[in-house]
């Protein structure tokens, strides 16, 4: 890892990285509240469709793999940027963004097929809690994809050298956190029905 032009800090840690970990801590409470509501309302819907009838485990498993692999792409992207390896940095940043878009594609497919099968935001408690929880997660993925594409553009503008590795690291923290939230959602919503 290269040194950035570091200002003196009391802990020796970078301000932006510290702020971002605090933000991630805060997001634990955000997603925690959404997941808790989902769990509290589980099984209380008065009308169907229910989880068993509608959740598609095979398809969601594939999108889960996809997101996990995107985290791999992300760490490889960071390593490439830190090394100054422009070609692989752009490849892996693009790959991460692409895999993120694939995940969003899966989610779009899932949402539209659920609506077809009669589950909307308004249908029942499952619909409301499911769509708001996974929708919030999806919105986070979308923001992440935008962030990654921005970094990719910066790389092509030759403005993402090793001295900017911290920016990529922080984008990585965000991306992995979004992945980790999905790990929880996949287990708690899809697998433990």
């Amino acid at each position, binding site marked *: 890892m290269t040194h950035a032009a570091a*200002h*003196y*800090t*009391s*802990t020796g*840690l970078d*301000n932006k990285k*510290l*702020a971002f970990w*605090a*933000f991630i*801590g*805060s*997001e634990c*409470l*955000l997603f925690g*509240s*959404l997941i808790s*509501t989902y769990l*509290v*309302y589980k099984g*209380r*819907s*008065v*009308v169907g469709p229910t989880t068993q009838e509608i959740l598609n485990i095979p398809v969601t498993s594939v999108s889960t793999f996809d997101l996990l692999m995107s985290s791999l792409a992300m760490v490889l992207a960071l390593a490439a940027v830190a090394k100054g390896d422009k070609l692989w940095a752009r490849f892996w940043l693009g790959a991460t963004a692409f895999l993120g878009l694939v995940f969003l594609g899966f989610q779009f497919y899932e949402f539209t097929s659920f609506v077809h099968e009669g589950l909307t*935001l*308004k249908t*029942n*408690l499952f*619909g*409301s*809690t499911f769509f*708001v929880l996974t929708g919030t997660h999806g919105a986070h993925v979308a923001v992440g994809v935008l962030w990654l594409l*921005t970094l990719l553009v910066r790389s092509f503008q030759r403005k993402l050298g090793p001295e900017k590795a911290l920016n990529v690291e922080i984008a990585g923290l965000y991306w992995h956190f979004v992945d980790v939230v999905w790990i929880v959602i996949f287990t708690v919503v899809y697998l433990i029905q």
Partner: protein
Amino acid sequence: MWKWITTTDHKRIGILYGVTAFVFFLIGGLEALFIRLQLAKPENALVSAETFNQLFTMHGTTMVFLAIMPMSAAFFNYIIPLQIGARDVAFPRLNAFSYWVFLLGGLFLNASFLFGAAPDGGWFGYLNLTSRQYSPGINIDFWVLGLQVLGIASLAAGFNFIVTIVNMRAPGMRMMRLPVFTWMTLVTQIIVVTAFPVITVGLVFLMFDRFFGTTFYSVAAGGDLLLWQHLFWLFGHPEVYILILPAMGIVSEVLPTFSRKPLFGYAVVVYSGALIGFMGWGVWAHHMFASGLGPIADSVFGATTMMIAIPTGVKIFNWLATMWGGQIRFTAAMLFAMGFIAMFVIGGLSGVMHSSPPADLQQTDTYFVVAHIHYVLFGGAIQGLFAGIYYWFPKMTGRLLNEKLGKVHFWVMLVGMNLAFFPMHFIGLLGMPRRIYTYRAELGVADMNLVSTIGAHIIAVSLLFFIYNVWRSWRKGEVAGNDPWGGATLEWTIPSPPPEYNFTVIPEVLSRLPRWSVTQMKAIPDVPPEPIHMPGGSYWPVVAAVGIIGMASGAVAHTLWIVLASGALLVFSIFRWAFEPFEV
């Protein structure tokens, strides 16, 4: 004017917060006066029931979110960098952003009055009163969206100050050498960034129910109205510690200075503050003792609530021990700090009375609770904040507030607040509920209500002395110099008001009380040894704030294109902000 709009200087932002918060405090106070005038006599007809609902809802919402929190933020902004030996906060543009979002959010909330549709569901918005079915108008839309906007401001500031306090301390300023005000601010910001997400989620659910027909709070769909109460109070209880801890921090600065004695048990006071912040997460359902939680939940939350009195009490004893044996100077700031202790103890006693579920069943939703709230928040937080104003006004303006006027302000306000709020204990126990626009004479509370109304007006009179004092002293007050009080902490080492860069040289700190300790720190030169570059301003924080309020306004107006256009403006301004050359 442009300089103020684009400023990223923590001192200017602090003043903006302070002035804005005070104006909102006056607005909230006017709302209170109307409430009290309506209740001055039984079956009064000064305002309608619907208007009364708007008055008490806006009074509570305004005082909590637009007065106390931002006034505390004024001090976070101005004083924290000075106390830790820094030139500014960690993220100056984010700091400006927080202020503008707060201002626009406060204006947005109050704009509802222009439509005759101010929020009217109480400051805690219980369902299903606030559902679209029972509140079809835009009143609650203003409330939900306004709070979300204000939440963004608070969260941004929370991250900013956590990083500032942890990471930008001068060399030698170890954590256990921090002034107590800085410590309490750190605990407060940790509470902010953990508690606000919970209310964000609760409000998202309410917004989706109202706008998109979801079923989060729909009983017919199997939903539970208590979900809102839990989510709200999971935020709401930590919120009251957000309201009180900064004021406690101020008191912990003022008392030692005017007792000429270091704070008794510094470490214990710091740990108690942190403990209060942590334990504050375990008591929320004491706001729900009358909602049918069951004996186990009632007992657990009753016990945790009683326990949180312990670290609070510890602080009181430490403050008293600080004064004991000290050389007390009864300045206005000191009087307010002492007034805090006295009034907060009274509020704390009624609070402990609430902690017993069976007792609370009688007290809840009556004026007994209103008494408690106002003793801790007015007698406590507001007095603490006034102590801070009298204490730090000289540092911010270079001039002292007039002490005689300050003392008149204190005594008149003390009399006023006790006349206003003490009778409420009895009014409540005699059976007058909260949030009712009138009452029958047979209840027997008419005289005490009248006394309370008179007390509220006496408070208002006391504020006139304060306003005149500020207006006169800002330009013509006695010149203060660096250290008018003989304070112990770093902010008193530099000129009043400080130069833009605060410190000519970042000091090296050798003790917890740098100006009082035997090992004197190296004197700070009058002139910087080499030119100090301070970042200029930026207008992207304002533009981003406008984008956010545009989205809220579009939502209230149910007009999608405004939401989308404002969202695009927000995204655009974030990109420009990110790529703007801005050297800290």
